[in-house]
């Protein structure tokens, strides 16, 4: 049974831009899919059509056989609880504390007045604390979000998505404004959490090497159409040219190869350091 199913999904913006052009996509349960493609290919639109932050022009979106595109607002909010979203530039509410940001992931579950007075159920608070511990932010709960570094903010963003107890993670350029090392830490954290919780995930990502490293499947989007769908290993220079256009991909690979080894080494060091901290 597919967890997520996009059927003939099309989005045309009022400006006339065709962002998605009859996209068909099946994601089975527990799979981590990387969505790659140049800027403006429709990656962000695709992810936002799934939880209807952007209304698709036509086509259907199904999550575990429930048709999201047919839901009325109340049911839509209900199903949004089951889809955690992680954003580019973190999208934390900067003037709220870390804890409030994490707990905002429970808004779909609690009533208005208890959220107004910030009286969340005990279980939610306990979950929030354990998630903060899991993403490595123990003791940070009362800091304001704008006092954190980029990597820390994205960890809060991950905790906010996970506290929803989602079936599906929608991840939009999670590493776009992070340095290479933090990027890999964040991607590793996301994929680890997905396998721990058997989450399905759709990850938009600019960085092809990162996509290769962490995804089980890669989908290439070009001008609103899927032009590649397969294993990360299948991303040959020809395929990349098809997705991104003409470029000396082998040269990029050659440059990348030696540093790749170094990065693996530094990653091992990182893991050791993190384990030491824990």
């Amino acid at each position, binding site marked *: 049974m597919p967890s997520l199913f996009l059927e003939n999904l099309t989005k045309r913006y009022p400006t006339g831009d065709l962002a998605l052009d009859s996209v068909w996509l099946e994601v089975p349960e527990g799979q981590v899919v990387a969505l790659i493609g140049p800027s403006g290919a429709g990656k962000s639109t695709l992810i936002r059509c799934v939880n209807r932050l952007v209304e698709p022009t036509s086509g259907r979106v199904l999550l575990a056989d429930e048709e999201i595109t047919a839901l009325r607002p109340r049911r839509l909010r209900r199903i949004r609880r089951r889809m955690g979203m992680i954003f580019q530039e973190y999208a934390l509410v900067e003037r709220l504390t870390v804890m409030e940001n994490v707990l905002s992931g429970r*808004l779909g579950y609690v009533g208005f007045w208890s959220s107004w007075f910030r009286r969340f159920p005990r279980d939610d608070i306990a979950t929030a604390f354990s998630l903060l511990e899991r993403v490595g932010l123990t003791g940070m709960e009362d800091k304001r979000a704008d006092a954190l570094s980029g990597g820390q903010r994205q960890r809060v963003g991950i905790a906010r998505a996970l506290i929803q107890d989602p079936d599906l993670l929608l991840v939009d350029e999670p590493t776009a404004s992070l340095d290479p090392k933090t990027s890999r830490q964040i991607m590793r954290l996301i994929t680890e959490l997905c396998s721990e919780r058997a989450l399905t995930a759709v990850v938009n990502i600019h960085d092809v090497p990162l996509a290769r490293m962490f995804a089980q499947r890669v989908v290439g989007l070009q001008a609103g159409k899927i032009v590649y769908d397969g294993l990360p290993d299948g991303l040959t220079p020809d395929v990349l040219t098809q997705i991104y256009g003409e470029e000396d991909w082998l040269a990029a690979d050659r440059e990348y190869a030696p540093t790749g080894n170094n990065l693996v080494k530094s990653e091992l060091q990182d893991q050791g350091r993190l384990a030491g901290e824990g």
Partner: protein
Amino acid sequence: MASPALSQETARWRPPPLIKSRRVRCFLALIVGLYVAAAFGTLDINWARVADGGPRALRFFSGFFPPDFAARWTAIVDGLLESLWMTIVATALGVLISIPIAVGGARNVAPLPVYFFCRSIMAASRTFHEVLIAIFFVKLFGFGPFAGVITLTFATLGFYAKLLAEDIEAIDPAQAEAIKATGAGWLQWLDFAIRPQVRPRAIGLAVYRLDINFRESAVIGIVGAGGIGATLNTAFDRYEFDTAAAILLIIIGIVMAAEYASGVIRHRLQ
């Protein structure tokens, strides 16, 4: 080496004019010239009267001097307190009513019909000067501070709701989108995504409006809407210029102090 043609070209360089077409430029200059001539021509300045202004001003200000705080002291204090009550109530009421109107008047929050409705309330409140509105409320509710409170509340609507709505429209959409994606309800979304982002400005604007309302309360009193303005008007009517001078000095003093204080408060909030 530059060719002769080029050097001639560069020698003739002038900054490009603001308006490209020479014809439009001349036309605009002509219009402005004609307007200034016509405006001054119809100004009807009675120069003899203006020249007389010097001695008159002297006499006038000697009537002002020395300012007499003592003669009408209780009336002044009463007027000031009344202005203060009016200011506080009008600001509190105005802000309270403005908040929902501001939310309704922000394009990124409200649907189009609500948006137009709220924006037209703001426009209605901003079209007419406070004093004109005060004249009508005095006519409706009788002389005294009640009409003043209603006037100032109404005027606060146009100011506060408009600026707050613009603030709401200028929030970071990514943060709002993130909260929406959690499945939050509309009110929860306002509370978690919008409120934290506009709160400092909203408080700052309220303090600023408190300051403005006090100033305005000194003016609408002239048309009968209570407060220190009424006291001032009485003083002018009775030719008690020394008392009027005292009142003006007190108003200036309070306005300066209030502006300084509100400036400090708003600065702290940033």
